[in-house]
């Protein structure tokens, strides 16, 4: 404490004077402008959730149309080109625009609340991350307007992506759109990393953070390391397509396999990046609904990190059929099988938590507990594809389609929907309806398994992926019909969720601060929380600050009702990375136009590059420089002058 610029006083969180000061300090500019200038992590988090959910619906509709085409043999609802565009957009949408951003939404909303901070470490960067995500999504979806959607799968292999075989703008839109999105993901990841390193409440040592923090932190570190690979790949491809460079062009000495390596070095860690935070949601919420702390916090936290560490060394399992030497295939095969070990840690921890607890069968719990089963099914099908000779058969069949959907729906969407039932009351202050919730769950659970479980069999019967039609007599007809029916039941479940949310916003029962009797800090503040999250900065003495009375595990108690008053501006504590001791009072920026304007400028630059309108590109570049200059101009009230003294 001695190093702090001042020693803040201890106050009570009911102190009206303190609340008034905070309300004034944290008030945002009103009106339309506030839409574009807010840097509140809660608003940004909700925007992420809403936007990603819209993309989920778009990707879902694309899937339903494809399922109608595939319901029976030789159907002609879609032309081959349209089918190929739809399966590409479905993959791009779900993987890039839904699965990652929805978890960013949860983490953006929850992180500062979980760790007892007032905002993310870089609030304006947070806003930038959202706006760029939104514009990148619109950029890619603009292709619909001209009927030139990307048509080469989310993996976008060359040479089919080369101009020679794909002369339209389809692939350029995808390339530039994903580079733009990469900027969003990267700045978001940096923000998460710095936030957890520096903004945890006093006393929250690294072994006291919720598992969601471990999941998103691990995913963020991975993103910082691997996004450059895919952004580079898409940039090189764009060069190849537009300026006749030859990174991937065979005639000129380029290598198609270079694309696959660059893509999967990114692609496989990305799969973990879009499941580890979702596993974190379950690891934090499932114990609350089982009325006991998570079994094996430390093994689960370490297994999260171990999964990602191994996850960097398995990308070649996407390339087992490319004719690589058997020695390298053996290595990657072994690594891909062994990566199941940390997953097993989590599975047994979740089951033990339920077994030794007293589960409450509400909607959120149904989603979380059924997730365990789907996690295991997605896990064992992944284990099968990890074995090289077996994968030679399984790869590029519907078996892998089943696998990826058990992973992405089972391990991402189910925790996300469960997470909405669990955390929306915190965000909106209102509960969701339990009856509709149960209907929602059973429709999704039955629909999902009916749609995707038969796909394992379709794959074992040899149906290749990415075919717009198939002939009768191959044993695939009725399985495909079942899948199509199941997909519509799943979609009906999503509709019930939307209805439930809408009703809840209007008529939902008031939630109160802590409707689930949970133990972590986000439940210590009101629902919804004020702009500044916490009236007083809590001081944490255990992993479950709100459960200390029940658990009686130590005499030390966290302080949440009483604590340090930080109300002289947008203030929060900067704390040590490992021990969580405060070493500085940080001042955070308030609302700003710059994130929005910078995002707009970036989008203008990318649009100029796409249309090869160099004037638009130059204008975008200039606008970027101006926005950055305004953004970075030192502001004494943020303490940026003080920084200079430290040199």
């Amino acid at each position: 404490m001695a190093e702090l610029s001042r020693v803040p006083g201890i106050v009570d969180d009911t102190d009206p004077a303190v609340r008034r000061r905070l309300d004034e300090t944290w008030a945002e500019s009103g009106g339309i402008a506030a839409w574009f200038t807010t840097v509140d992590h809660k608003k940004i988090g909700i925007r992420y959730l809403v936007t990603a959910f819209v993309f989920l619906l778009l990707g879902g509709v694309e899937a339903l149309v494809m399922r109608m085409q595939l319901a029976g043999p030789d159907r002609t609802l879609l032309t081959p080109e349209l089918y190929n565009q739809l399966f590409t957009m479905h993959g791009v949408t779900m993987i890039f625009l839904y699965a990652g951003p929805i978890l960013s939404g949860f983490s953006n909303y929850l992180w500062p609340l979980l760790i007892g901070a007032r905002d993310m470490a870089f609030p304006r960067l947070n806003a930038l991350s959202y706006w760029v995500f939104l514009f990148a999504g619109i950029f890619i979806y603009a292709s619909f307007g001209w009927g030139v959607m990307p048509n080469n799968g989310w993996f976008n292999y060359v040479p089919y992506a080369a101009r020679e075989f794909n002369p339209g703008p389809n692939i350029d839109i995808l390339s530039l759109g994903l580079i733009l999105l990469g900027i969003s993901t990267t700045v978001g990841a940096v923000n998460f990393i710095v936030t957890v390193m520096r903004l945890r409440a006093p006393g929250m040592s690294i072994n006291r953070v919720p598992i969601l923090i471990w999941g998103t932190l691990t995913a963020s570190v991975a993103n910082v390391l691997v996004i450059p690979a895919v952004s580079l790949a898409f940039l090189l491809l764009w060069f190849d397509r537009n300026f006749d460079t030859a990174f991937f062009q065979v005639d000129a000495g380029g290598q198609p396999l270079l694309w696959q390596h660059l893509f999967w070095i990114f692609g496989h860690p990305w799969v973990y990046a879009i499941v580890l935070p979702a596993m974190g949601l379950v690891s934090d919420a499932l114990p609350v609904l089982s009325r006991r702390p998570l079994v094996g916090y430390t093994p689960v936290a370490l297994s999260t990190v171990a999964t990602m560490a191994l996850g960097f060394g398995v990308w070649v399992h996407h390339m087992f059929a490319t004719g690589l030497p058997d020695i390298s295939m053996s290595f990657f095969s072994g690594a891909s099988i062994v990566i199941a070990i940390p997953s097993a840690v989590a599975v047994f921890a979740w089951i033990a938590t339920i077994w030794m607890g007293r589960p409450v069968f509400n909607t959120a719990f149904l989603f979380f507990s059924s997730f365990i089963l789907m996690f295991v099914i997605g896990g064992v099908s992944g284990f099968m594809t990890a074995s090289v000779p077996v994968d030679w058969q399984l790869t590029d069949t519907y078996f892998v389609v089943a696998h990826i959907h058990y992973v992405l729906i089972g391990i991402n969407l189910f925790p996300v929907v469960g997470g909405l039932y669990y955390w929306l009351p915190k965000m909106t202050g209102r509960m969701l309806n339990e009856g509709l919730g149960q209907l929602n769950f059973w429709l999704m659970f039955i629909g999902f398994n009916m749609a995707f479980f038969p796909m394992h069999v379709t794959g074992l019967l040899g149906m290749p992926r990415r075919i717009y039609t198939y002939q009768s007599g191959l044993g695939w007809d009725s399985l495909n019909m079942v899948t199509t029916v199941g997909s519509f039941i799943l979609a009906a479940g999503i509709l019930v969720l939307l209805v439930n949310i809408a009703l809840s916003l209007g008529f939902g029962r008031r939630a109160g601060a802590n409707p689930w009797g949970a133990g972590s800090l986000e439940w210590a503040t009101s629902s919804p929380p004020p702009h500044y999250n916490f009236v007083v900065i809590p001081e944490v003495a255990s992993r479950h600050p709100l459960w200390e009375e029940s658990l009686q595990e130590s005499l030390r108690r966290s302080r949440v009702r009483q604590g340090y008053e930080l109300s002289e501006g947008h203030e929060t504590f900067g704390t040590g990375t490992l021990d969580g001791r405060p070493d500085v009072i940080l001042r955070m920026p308030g609302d700003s136009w710059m994130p929005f304007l910078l995002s707009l400028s970036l989008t203008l630059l990318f649009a100029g590059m796409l249309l090869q309108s160099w004037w638009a590109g130059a204008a975008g570049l200039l606008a970027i420089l101006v926005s950055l200059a305004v953004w970075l101009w030192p502001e004494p009230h943020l303490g940026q002058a003080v920084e200079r003294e430290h040199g």
Partner: protein
Amino acid sequence: MMRSAFLGGTLAAVDSVPGAAAAEATQSLPMNFLTGYGDRAFPVVNLTWGVLAISVIVVIVITALLLGALFRRRPGGWAHDPARLPVSREGNGLPWISIGVGISTVVLFGTVVWTMTTLSAVMEPDEDTALTIEVDAHQWWWEVRYLGDSPDEIFTTANEIHIPVGRPVRVRLVGGDVIHSFWVPALSGKTDVIPGRTNRTWIEASEPGVYRGQCAEYCGLQHAKMGLFVIASPEDEFEAWREAQLAPASDDIAEDAARGREDFMRNCSACHTVRGTPAGGAVGPDLTHVASRRTIAAGTLENTPANLTAWIEDAQTFKPGNRMPTLDLEGQTLMDIVAYLETLE
């Protein structure tokens, strides 16, 4: 209505292979790989069943544990409001993790070993290969070249690979336009065909029969219609087939076919080759013995005169986007060309 190749084509083809014991198994579920034929397939089929069994057992065990955890009897019955139920840290859950992970680890490492041994067992054939076939994958058909020591042993065909039963055959996969993947499920897993590279694989059929294959790497518009057939027959039949394929097109043809040959040279020879004639195009399939093939357009249609006529008249209806142009041929010309093609046995 055109007959789709699969039902018509393959069943007829299977009938024509004497002693086709494999026929029945490959007939109802022709693309499944849970049954295999030949030394390349057997160890992989065993491993596939093995890891499948492990997976099913794991799912059953975990489901049982989960159901037990959910529904085991608890003092005080079921609670509905979590906020009213106090939390407690009863019991030690860590043995769950150590035992569960311990067992999993043993199974996983066992699978690694089994994978490695299977991999080394199937990388190369045990005995000398009977012949080497070069397969060039194109958008969206397969060019098949039988290699030999001298030029007169080399010939080219399309979308059909004939092999002698019980002999390993080497396959060289030469990349051309975009990436494709060579896959005949009952005989062998996938090997990609990548531009700028030549990949190698091998196949062996332990029993006579027709084995269906298909391109397995997304390759564009008509990836769905890029079928392939491997026909395994006894050695003497295979040799007879090879002799027939080596021969150039016959000159001894009827009057309408002779007219058709003239029309073919005028309209088709820029893209197609018929050995023994001036037609030497290299864009489309070699048609020297097109009438001997079971399907046209890579498994899209059964090879009948009616289908062939319809295909030449408007190939884009059956396989939109394929490279075969619509030539607006007059009725008589079209019929003559088909008559000519039917002589190319």
